[in-house]
């Protein structure tokens, strides 16, 4: 079960990296938002891993706490970074235009 857990988390981590690289390329994120977004993603993943392990060891309460504290704080960091540091500089029509012109 533990092996399955680490395997799945590896896949989830790789997907998260894919999404981050994609977003970085499309939006051209400012350098200082990267560690914040990356930290948030790692925090979410730690919460998921904690939760899974806690269920395996028979302590679902710890799983719920881990998910809400770690993944929850990770989500908050990502949302705050996005709303306050990324979104204000975003020009959605321009991005769409870019995407179109690439075709």
């Amino acid at each position, binding site marked *: *079960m*533990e092996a399955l857990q680490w395997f799945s988390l590896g896949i989830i*981590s*790789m997907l998260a*990296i*894919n999404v*981050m*690289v*994609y977003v*970085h*390329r*499309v939006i051209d994120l400012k350098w200082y938002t990267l560690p914040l977004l990356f930290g948030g993603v790692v925090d979410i993943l730690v919460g998921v*891993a*904690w939760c899974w*392990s*806690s269920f*395996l*060891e*028979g*302590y*679902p*309460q*710890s799983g719920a*706490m*881990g998910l809400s504290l770690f993944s929850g704080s990770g989500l908050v960091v990502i949302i705050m970074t996005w709303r306050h540091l990324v979104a204000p500089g975003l020009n959605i029509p321009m*991005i769409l235009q*870019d*995407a179109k012109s*690439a*075709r």
Partner: protein
Amino acid sequence: MTNQVENHKELEAEDELPNMSRRSFFKRTAAAGGAAILGGGAVLGASKTSLQGSLNTPGIVVDENFKPKDQRDVMLCHATSYHLSQVRNPERGAQYARLQKKDFNFNRALQTFENRDHFDNNKPGYGQADRAIGHAAWYPLVVAKSRAAAFTQPNTPMHSWSQADIHEEQFDWGSGKRAADMIRSTGRLFGAVRVGIAKFDKRFVYDPLYDLVEERTLSWEKDFPFKPKSVIVIATPMDYDNVATAPSWTAEGATGNGYSDMSKIACQIAKFIRGCGYNAVGAGNDLASSVAYAIQAGLGEGGRNGSVIVPGMGPRVRLCKVFTNIDFEDAYDQPRTWGITEFCKSCKKCADACPSGAISQDDDTSFAPTYEFSDEPDYTWNNHIGIKKFYSDAKKCFNFWMDNDTSCLNCVASCTFNEPDFWHHWMIMAVNPYMPKFVHSLMAEGHPAFGYGGQSRDPIPAKVEKFWVSGEDMRTNTSMKNNIGTAG
């Protein structure tokens, strides 16, 4: 051919990601993935180094009042011996009864310990099965006539001082390191979860020793069969779910089983060493303070609850020792720190959960007891004064055991470091030394909030029930649940 190329180009254009070629995208994800793997590896390496503990500690700190402990002043020894309790020092019991306003005598109370047939099947943790599991757990030692080692009796059949079976040829270990490795591997085979090796240190043995059966003192120089050079300290685990039932009778299952394992492993390792042609004597609670030697052997740090806190297991271990004349040269272990004693200064969970109020609520360690009545003449006779640590009143603890008609374990179950053996607890252990005081307090509060520990002064019925169904899956045991509490 042209059509094929055109079709392919069209498909590519459709799939193409905005502003990025597919090659560039995969290059970047591969680089990011590689960086993540390297970062993860670095974190793992740093955690493993942190879990080894730091040598930057003085180990056991003593002051000018320190001297080796007289075995006759060990609580369990005093209470077990009729001579010590009723003839040599009856004033100790009388003083305790007077100050605590109780009709209580250490030696008399022990006579019926765990044999009062008053189980109640309607009271979780105090039914017939709860009584039976404790008796069963201790039974190997009863059969081997060696249970007295738990009460500090030396030279019991399982920890015999006889060296008659020593092999005449001495095995050449090759080096101290090789000897240590081979003995640790043997310990692991026999069921140890930790094996550390300390130099023999006369400061931390009981001196004089006391034979409770013959009611006489014994000397290391005249009576012990050889001059020890080293002490091998072995930790054996107690079951997480069973310990969680403390202070019920059910929890005596983990205690008794731990003692049976201690005797078995120490007896086996001593026999192995004698088979290799060297002197060896195993020991349970006898001969020396197991906590002091475990600290000396780098197994853990002293906690507020008086136990040694072992990283990864907390205080949920039993300790035994093997005294030998093997010289391990430069392969001896050293005291280490993981910031555990420091953590205890901000965490009082064990003291809060202690049903007898025996555990110190002080904010810092001290060289002498500070508990209630500790300024009364000779009231602290059971404490080993002159060591910097948290001092408990073992007389109150013993009193509770007698009233509860079993030992207790609540300070083990409630400890913030008592957690199942799983990576996320190791992660917390690894970061602990770098955390400031206020984070230690948060961690101590977080432990019960996450569902661990959280003992009350009485057994929690749900935990008793959880233990009794913990073997439900044992036919195939696909979750690999073992008695360390692992679900691998």
